[in-house]
């Protein structure tokens, strides 16, 4: 609708006056639209976008070191990270003073835990030093260097001080480096040992398994969408229910169904044994591995592929294929050269949607994946729950989120967010 329709020009309104009135009406309409949207927009920004933003900010936040150890950080400024000797007595005196205050504030172990993410064993070092430092008198009991090394030999090692110096700034790239299996303890960025690197492998696994799942849903979804689009509408509606029922069924129910079906004593193995393909004492391991995740997630995400494909295929006029055939194309040529290219928007929409949803999956890999079928989300949850390394959670999360947002942007370009359809 246009505003002109509501404001039919009356004879006394001419030229400029009419224009002004139209502009005012338009402005009022815009403001009304924005006011209607405002409460929800504020709710989403406050309750969703800003929390995520601040969580991701933790990935670079390193202020804890400077806050708990201000004197040591200053004293370390004159010490060169490439030096081959441990810092001078001055730094150790500052450390003793800082540590005494930190013990009182109960912040020493928080600091220790943060450093421990970079250098294993740091917590023990701080704990030992903490015990010793309580009784020291900063003014008179020096020099402290030997006393620290006596409390824990780690204080005399170069690596400790390199890590301390490297991670003394309030902002760090350390968590991001850790998220891609690098470290910069010695001041230089270097890969961590193979046997401890895990994140790049997990990102890669998440990506290729999602791509495979995406391909599987396309492979299974395309024929179904084609069938739905080409049978009589009455049958199509009935068959559509078979697609929509899994779509509406709880994700947990579907995951648990697969867990129950695929387990060693489950229905699939029971069937295979009964048919005689598999020996009773040699049942297949279908679960707690990649296979289980791929099967279950293909099943769960299949409707997300079928529905966009179907909505595109429905709009393709059958006369095109008929025209191609009447011009001499065989079935395959007519399909491949005429029909298939018209379905590409649907393939794009379905594939991106399935891929976006798959890379963020947590529940299904957690329940049927086992260690070898774990996705990056599961590792993030582990870091959050068990390790409590929130900086790393932020870093891993923002890498994952960046990937998803790029795909979301592509999806918007191809499909348009306002064209998303559900059911």
């Amino acid at each position, binding site marked *: *609708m*246009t505003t002109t329709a509501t404001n039919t020009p009356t004879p006394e309104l001419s030229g400029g006056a009419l224009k002004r009135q139209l502009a005012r009406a*338009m402005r009022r*309409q*815009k403001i*009304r*639209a*924005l*006011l*209607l949207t405002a*409460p*929800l*927009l504020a709710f*989403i920004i406050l*309750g969703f*976008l800003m929390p*995520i933003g*601040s969580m*991701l900010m933790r990935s670079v936040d390193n202020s804890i070191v400077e806050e708990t150890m201000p004197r040591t950080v200053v004293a370390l400024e004159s010490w060169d990270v490439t030096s081959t000797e441990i810092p001078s007595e001055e730094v150790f005196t500052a450390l003793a003073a800082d540590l005494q205050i930190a013990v009182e504030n109960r912040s020493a172990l928080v600091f220790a835990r943060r450093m421990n993410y970079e250098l294993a064993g740091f917590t023990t070092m701080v704990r030992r030093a903490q015990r010793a430092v309580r009784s020291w008198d900063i003014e008179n009991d020096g020099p402290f260097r030997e006393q620290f090394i006596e409390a824990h030999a780690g204080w005399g090692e170069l690596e400790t001080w390199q890590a301390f110096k490297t991670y003394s700034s309030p902002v760090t790239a350390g968590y991001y480096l850790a998220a891609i299996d690098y470290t910069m303890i010695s001041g230089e960025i270097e890969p961590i040992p193979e046997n401890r690197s895990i994140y790049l492998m997990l990102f890669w696994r998440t990506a290729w398994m999602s791509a495979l799942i995406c391909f599987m849903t396309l492979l*299974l979804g395309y*024929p*179904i969408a084609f*069938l739905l689009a*080409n*049978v009589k509408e009455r049958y199509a509606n009935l068959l559509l229910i078979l697609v929509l*029922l*899994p779509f*509406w*069924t*709880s*994700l*947990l*129910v*579907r995951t*648990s169904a*697969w*867990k*129950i*079906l695929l*387990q060693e*004593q489950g*229905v699939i193995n029971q069937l295979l044994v009964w048919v005689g393909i598999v020996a009773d004492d040699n049942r297949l391991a279908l679960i707690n591995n990649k296979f289980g995740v791929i099967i279950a997630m293909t*099943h769960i995400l299949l*409707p997300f592929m079928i529905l966009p494909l179907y909505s595109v295929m429905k709009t393709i006029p059958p006369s095109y294929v008929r025209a191609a055939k009447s011009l001499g194309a065989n*079935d395959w040529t007519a399909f491949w050269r005429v029909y298939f290219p018209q379905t590409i928007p649907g393939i794009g929409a379905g594939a991106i949607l399935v891929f976006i949803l798959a*890379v*963020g999956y*947590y529940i299904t890999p*957690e329940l049927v994946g086992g260690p070898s079928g774990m996705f990056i*989300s599961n590792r993030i*949850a582990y870091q959050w729950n068990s390790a409590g390394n929130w900086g790393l959670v932020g870093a891993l*999360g923002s890498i994952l989120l960046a990937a*998803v947002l790029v795909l*979301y942007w592509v999806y918007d370009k191809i499909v348009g*967010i*306002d064209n*998303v*359809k*559900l*059911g």
Partner: protein
Amino acid sequence: MALPSYASPAQKIWHYSYLTMCGLIFFFLIFPIVVIIPLSFNAQDFFTFTPEMLALDPAGFSLKHYVDFFTNPDWTQATYNSLVIAPMATLVSVSLGTLAAVGLSQSHVPFKRVIMAILISPMIVPLIISAAGMYFFFSAIGLQGTYWGVVLAHAILGIPFVIITVTATLVGFDRSLTRAAASMGAGPLRTFFKVQLPLILPGVISGALFAFITSFDEVVVVIFVGSAGQQTLPWQMFTGLREQISPTILAVATLMVGLSILLLATLEIMRRRNERMRGMTPG
């Protein structure tokens, strides 16, 4: 889809093998959901069909897993929690979402694309990231581990669905109806409740169903934002599945399949009503 009478044998073979393939894919879609229903009546604590069940012997079947579900306080409490959280979350997302969708459907909305992208984003962002973010935020404002914290978190997750479904119904909405109402002296509120809302109701209801099922089926965010007092049904299922599976899960799963059939049927009725209202005949 019917084969023409002049089809060659090769075309016939292809046609029937294609239909068989489709049949198998439909089987793959439905089988896992259907198979848990008979398994839930197993008299044994097994997850497979016992010989008695295969022989259709009544002794092989029982309702004991259902009895456990309805009497075990773990499950009844979880069901209760789900039933008080989901409707409230639905109410919040539907009221705010419908309002915003009506706003967005006006012509000449500035920044429409950006606003749309922001409002749909909770559906796209990986749940684990949303959950971690909301945990810190809700802890900071003292809502972590409270009923309202979980309700608000679930409302946020449900909003994209409400926006999508309501916007879709508004596309076909005839604007001259609101103008007619206004010209007869109805205020904006009255026009909305008496004219616009009844017409877009099918979209609002499907949005509400989506929002409800989102909350009713949600695990990750509730684990982060909630505490033991908000342990919902999916949470209880998730814990049960991760540790040791009790066969009661089969009964719960069956009941939840029943619920989704119910929702699907409601949605189908809504869709037909919507088409009828727009002057189209239901297919």
